[in-house]
């Protein structure tokens, strides 16, 4: 695959990081373009006219959007260091958890973006998500992918770092170690994987950024 690979992303986005992790785990060279979401580049708007969002992967001039769809594309184009299992049954299981992450993951962001009743409901939804993963997703496994990380670990990456940031900013502890021992262990193991460790956004910088955004969100919702 000699054609060039470009990734449009933002440094603090877990969705952007998913693609970075996949590319680095497979040893795929790429050019990274940091987007300013308040002033999106013309290439981004051209490559993702429908959603105008990051991440967008551009391979040989052809654009793929939506982080988990990008990951399936990367997996198919560059089969080395596979992120998906080989057997259809296990692949289906992985895709089940990817869908689960996509469907239930937004709840933790609602906790971050809201207050009052809406936030309380989002807290409940997030806890429900964590309980399901704890009970069914990590049974007898170090990683979701088994002995090494795979596509599901990457999909749940936001729990490993971003959830902690949200908890600190909002002031509510959701993932208590004694209530979620498997998830707690997984977070530790996940963040120790060298590629992940080297490619996690700086936590302190994230705290500053996300704190600022939350204040802006809550102020504007109070004023509207």
């Amino acid at each position: 695959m000699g054609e060039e690979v470009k990734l449009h992303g933002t440094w603090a986005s877990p969705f952007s990081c998913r693609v970075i992790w996949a590319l680095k785990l497979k040893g795929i060279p790429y050019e990274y373009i940091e987007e300013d979401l308040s002033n999106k580049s013309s290439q981004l708007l051209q490559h993702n006219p429908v959603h105008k969002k990051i991440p967008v992967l551009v391979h040989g001039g052809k654009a793929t959007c939506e982080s988990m769809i990008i990951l399936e594309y990367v997996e198919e184009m560059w089969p080395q260091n596979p992120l998906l299992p080989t057997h259809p049954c296990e692949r289906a299981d992985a895709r089940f958890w990817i869908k689960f992450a996509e469907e239930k993951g937004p709840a933790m962001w609602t906790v971050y973006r809201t207050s009052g009743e809406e936030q309380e409901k989002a807290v409940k939804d997030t806890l429900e998500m964590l309980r399901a993963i704890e009970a069914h997703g990590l049974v007898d496994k170090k990683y979701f992918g088994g002995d090494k990380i795979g596509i599901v670990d990457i999909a749940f990456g936001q729990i490993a770092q971003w959830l902690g940031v949200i908890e600190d900013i909002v002031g509510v502890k959701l993932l208590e170690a004694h209530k979620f021992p498997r998830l707690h262990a997984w977070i530790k193991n996940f963040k120790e994987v060298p590629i992940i460790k080297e490619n996690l956004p700086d936590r302190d910088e994230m705290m500053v950024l996300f704190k600022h955004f939350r204040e802006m969100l809550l102020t504007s919702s109070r004023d509207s």
Partner: protein
Amino acid sequence: MEKQNEVVLFGTWASAFCKRVELALKIKGIPYEYVEEDLTNKSESLLHYNPVHKKVPVLVHNGKPISESLVILEYIDECWNNTPKLLPEDPYQRAKVRFWVNFFDHQIMARLLPIIMTRGEEREKAIKEFNELLKVFEEGINKDFPEEFPFLEGKTLGYLDIVVGTALCNYEAFHEVVDVVFSPEKNPVIMAWVKALKNHPLMKETLPPHDKFVDKMREKYLDQYP
């Protein structure tokens, strides 16, 4: 000796998500046993096979359960590797198909409930938004699949056809029970596609009968949102 291919589908007759799986099985010519679930009294089997969501459809293949309709479709395509293929072979084409199915499910279908729940001006606004999203879908499909689109009679059904067809082919029931939201004037390309899909023999065989479906929709929606 390899175990015989035993395929069981747990579903409900009125669910488009279940119909997706039935249609995929029929397209591939896979024999299966169908189990109709009563969602007010879910079977032990269903709860055992889908402990996380406790929902239909669930496909059980030689005793192994797979849940989530789109996951099941990809599984069927991978396991029964014969033609016709449900998804394209080329990775970039596959990414585009997945993108538009995602858009259809999360953007378009998600807009039906706001229409059902509202009345008067609010509903008119919701219908307008729905039609605009359908337009985005039409233009996107047209741009990304210039050779495939519009759907031609006799062509084998693919992933997108399955998803769009099972959701929209019974649109007349929606018109009867809720409101008129689809029209050839507002969305000519989708309507032509849906019309062609409705005439496909496997789609005809799979879709629930109109009158029965109308009664079910009335029961589901009008009772909940009088």
